[in-house]
């Protein structure tokens, strides 16, 4: 009897923690997630302290059942015009000159700049179930710890698990992103936020390669605007027609 009671208590605690976790996660998204967004961001990749690569990428994200992102490389000149469509593990890239559209495996972008764009646009509550796993101190800040497991219907998402730490004001402070294999791929620090359209926008994010911690990337939004593209634009067939138009954002 005692055994059954402790099992029941365990199940109830998991259930309560899950409810608790999902509520916190929804609060986090309510604070930071901006649907139907146009953006430009600078992505600087470092090895140690040495800058090894710098890109400016523009993109559109779409608020839908799926996490949809269209990306356009603005610089450097050798990559200008490269376009990408990302929807979890469904990734297409089109080269500007040959017009070749290539299907990529998630591994091919897992540590790349485009994938970092995906990290920045993760809408946690739509894709993940959360369990509240207590609290911990991150960089001297007290944070709530959430364990996020990808929802069964979102199995194709790039990251199957995220451990997220939430700080003051329900804003993310630090997260660890795991691939389907269970391998930790990225450690992400959310460095600064700024207000946009009644929400708090992640302005600067620092991403460490979990496999090789010497490699890290700093992403900084340089423009943010509102843009609601039709769903038909987030298809591989539309990539050839996708033309990025600069906008006067915030």
């Amino acid at each position, binding site marked *: 009897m005692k055994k059954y009671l402790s099992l029941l208590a365990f199940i109830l605690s998991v259930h309560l923690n899950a409810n608790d976790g999902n509520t916190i996660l929804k609060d986090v998204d309510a604070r930071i997630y901006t649907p139907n967004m146009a953006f430009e961001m600078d992505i600087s990749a470092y*090895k140690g302290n040495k800058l*090894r*690569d710098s890109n400016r990428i523009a993109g559109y994200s779409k608020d839908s059942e799926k996490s949809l992102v269209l990306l356009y490389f603005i610089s*450097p*000149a*050798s990559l*200008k*015009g490269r376009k990408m469509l990302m929807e979890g*593990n*469904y*990734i297409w890239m089109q080269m*500007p*000159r*040959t*017009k*070749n*559209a*290539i*299907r*990529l*495996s*998630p*591994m*091919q*972008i*897992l*540590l*790349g700049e485009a994938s970092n764009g995906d990290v920045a646009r993760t809408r946690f509550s739509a894709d993940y179930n959360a369990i509240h796993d207590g609290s911990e101190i991150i960089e001297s800040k007290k944070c709530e710890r959430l364990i996020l497991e990808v929802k069964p219907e979102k199995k*194709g998402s790039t990251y199957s698990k995220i451990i997220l730490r939430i700080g003051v004001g329900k804003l993310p402070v630090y997260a660890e992103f795991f*691939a*389907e*294999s269970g391998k930790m791929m990225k450690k992400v620090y959310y460095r600064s936020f700024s207000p946009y359209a009644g929400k708090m926008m992640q302005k600067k994010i620092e991403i460490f390669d979990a496999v090789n911690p010497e490699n890290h990337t700093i992403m900084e939004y340089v423009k943010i605007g509102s843009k609601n593209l*039709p*769903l*038909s*634009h*987030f*298809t*591989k*067939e*539309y990539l*050839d*027609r996708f*033309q*990025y*138009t*600069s*906008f*006067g954002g915030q």
Partner: protein
Amino acid sequence: MRSRILFTTFLFLAIRENVLSFDGFYNIQSTAAAHKISEKTDENRFSLSQTLFANHSASFSIFNSSINTNAFGKIISGDNPETEKSKSKFESKITELYFSIGSDSLFFDIGKKHIKTGTALFKSPTYYFDSVSGSTWKRDSNSEKKTKEGTIGLKAEWINNICTLSEYYSPRITINDDKKDNIERFTSEQDFHRSLSSLSFRIKDLDMSLFFLYTKRNNGTKFNSGLTSNISIGDSFTLYIDASIADHKYIYLPDEKTFSIEEDKVNNPIEASSGISYSINENNTLYAEYYYNGAGLNKSDYDDALDFMDKMNSFNYGSAGLLSGKYGLFNMGKHYLMIRGTFSINDSYDFSAMNILNLYDKSGLFQSEINYDGEGFIITFMGRNYYGRDKSEINYFSNIREMSAEFEIYF
């Protein structure tokens, strides 16, 4: 004066409000190549050629329409390795020039546009509008590899989030002899009408496209049906297949009695390319692609063709060249295999190697490249070797070893 002011104001407001936009990218590429003719000839000859490319690519958009252009100019100088003749010439070509207009889901294109209908890397039977199918190899260092030449036509496309339907029509083109020099910079003659219908859709992560091509010539019609499909599996694998079936195709067989070449009709030949890519990590990927050519020669015809070309060569007749010219490279055999690897050495250097093998006569092409990616420029060193025994497909199509260096500036 008033109209100028109005126009300038309109232009200013259009740019300011992002109604009007311009986007373009340019690169200049200089290639120097050394060629070595194979041991088959009496002497080992070397030749050098230099090519200077300037590529332009731009689009100009206003409201829901755009004008898109792709063009290149090139200057080739040096020796032609095949003929030993020195040459120096300027060529320029508009590879694409088309006008697009559309709404959120319905689009129309008119003009010269590259129509891409496949995903295979080495050879795709569904690249119905490509002179050289595949994207991993090119014929020589003087060829443009950055831009693909389009065909003139009209395209209507309906894209929605469930499927895409498109219809493309490319008309017959005849050019008066006295205008050829000017017009051929834009287009070549085309003695047939072509119409391509396609339907693309997605089932979860599986992409599928179906094609139906109708070709009408003066002497008859031809139908092709094709499909392309691809999927990614797990974190590291992608699989693809491009396949096509034609109602008929002509093959070319030698007649040793008359020393001539005869056409033979093959009904319903199937062609298919199937490939897999495996990403070891973000920067290192392996590819394998198998190409089946249903219209390729069977073993006895293949051996007869090689014997014939060998005889013609020894008599110094031109018919050997004629037969190889009719087939083109990697078309005579039934089975081919491509293996390719792309590797990152460090942040600046990439290495790639590729081997294409004719599985019947074991002749093939090996090509390797090292790229240095600098600030705004890329330097590429490439080595290419065609190999095979004296009587093999490769030896009748190309017998050149080539080393080249390319310097590209992007802006």
